[in-house]
């Protein structure tokens, strides 16, 4: 179980590690986070930030800076594979990117003006949602309308996706609602250094009635662009420390790559349960530490 470090002290043994130890510990943790993130579809950022902050006592600003970088790596790295499957909708993605990038900049600027306790608590709430999704949700049945609504038509957002060898048409609805949710997703991404893929999928799948597969792959493409929008703010404020970001980026990338390779044989159901429990524990730790001012 992860012990809660007292601010400025950390676990006694971690108070001052050598650079070598720190690098390899973070590399290992990030590889596990990237692996589980790829298998469960929740991404690595959502566990690496609390892991760094709670287990190693890393200041949350360094943790979200390193996580943001790893989010870009997994998103761009997986783009080729997703395109090959022929699911993502580039028009929908690009249109909604206007909302996520503006939201991300707002979130990243906010991160500098709120205390780390607030960041920890908001992070905990996002983790609770992720735990719920991992433990209780299964992929929803696709019941997408084939016709877009008026605005969706004007914006030519409808597309086709492969179903049993043929390409099936789908329409896109409720663009303004989706746009609003995407602004929030961008804000959380900028504030917490995560991809907030879960909220992006909800915006497209639930609000805009886009098929689930199209939503998840389009979300993956959007995550990298959203994260790049906060990167400038993070970089200029010094959140991206190369000594922390290096093992996180390399570890998450390697873990995610391994995760996509074993995805086919893995018992995803069991993994989701384990992952959900870990995320739930992290959520509670983050909220408690945020409330008591320890993170």
């Amino acid at each position: 179980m992860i012990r809660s470090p007292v601010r400025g002290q950390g676990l006694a043994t971690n108070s001052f590690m050598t650079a070598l130890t720190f690098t390899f510990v973070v590399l290992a943790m990030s590889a596990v986070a990237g692996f589980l993130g790829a298998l469960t579809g929740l991404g690595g950022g959502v566990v690496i930030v609390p892991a760094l902050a709670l287990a190693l006592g890393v200041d949350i600003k360094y943790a979200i800076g390193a996580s943001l970088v790893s989010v870009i790596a997994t998103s761009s790295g997986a783009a080729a594979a997703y395109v090959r499957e022929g699911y993502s909708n580039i028009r929908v993605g690009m249109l909604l990117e206007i909302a996520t990038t503006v939201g991300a900049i707002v979130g990243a600027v906010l991160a500098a003006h709120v205390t780390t306790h607030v960041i920890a608590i908001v992070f905990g709430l996002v983790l609770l949602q992720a735990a719920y999704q991992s433990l209780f949700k299964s992929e929803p049945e696709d019941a997408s309308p084939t016709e877009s609504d008026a605005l969706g038509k004007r914006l030519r957002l409808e597309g086709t996706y492969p179903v049993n060898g043929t390409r099936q048409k789908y329409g896109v609805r409720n663009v303004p609602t989706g746009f609003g949710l995407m602004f929030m997703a961008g804000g959380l991404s900028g504030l917490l250094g995560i991809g907030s893929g879960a909220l992006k999928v909800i915006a497209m799948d639930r609000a805009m009635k886009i098929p689930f597969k199209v939503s998840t792959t389009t979300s993956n493409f959007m995550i990298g662009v959203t994260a790049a929008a906060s990167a400038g703010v993070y970089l200029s404020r010094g959140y991206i420390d190369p000594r922390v970001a290096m093992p996180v980026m390399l570890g998450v990338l390697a873990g995610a790559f391994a995760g996509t390779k074993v995805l086919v044989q893995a018992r995803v159901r069991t993994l989701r349960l384990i992952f959900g429990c870990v995320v739930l524990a992290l959520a509670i730790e983050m909220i408690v530490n945020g409330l008591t001012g320890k993170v």
Partner: protein
Amino acid sequence: MDDQRLETNIGNLLRAGVLLSAATVFGGGVLYLVRHHADRVSYHQFSPDGAVVQSFRGILKSAAHLNSEGLIQFGLLLLIATPVARVALAVAGFALERDRLYAGVSLIVLVILVLSLMRAM
């Protein structure tokens, strides 16, 4: 060129960018560990003082001097550039298809990204 072909090419380009970035970060990381493996490190308290590696100019300069942290940061810059390149290519792709609406939409996203990254200039 249809959407699908264009996307496949862009996807491959992005992966190449990520690999190049990862190789640079790895190289910088090895150099960092060779030189600093015995350093005592602690990241408990955030301090915004590493000015050398926070601006584009600082990063380029320190990477050119083969400073390990500058090299890592340069690799991370390459990584941050991949989604930006992706959006720029989408602008070009839509413009070639004479899709003015989406060339415009992509251009707005590109401008937002560039304005945001200018902060780190």
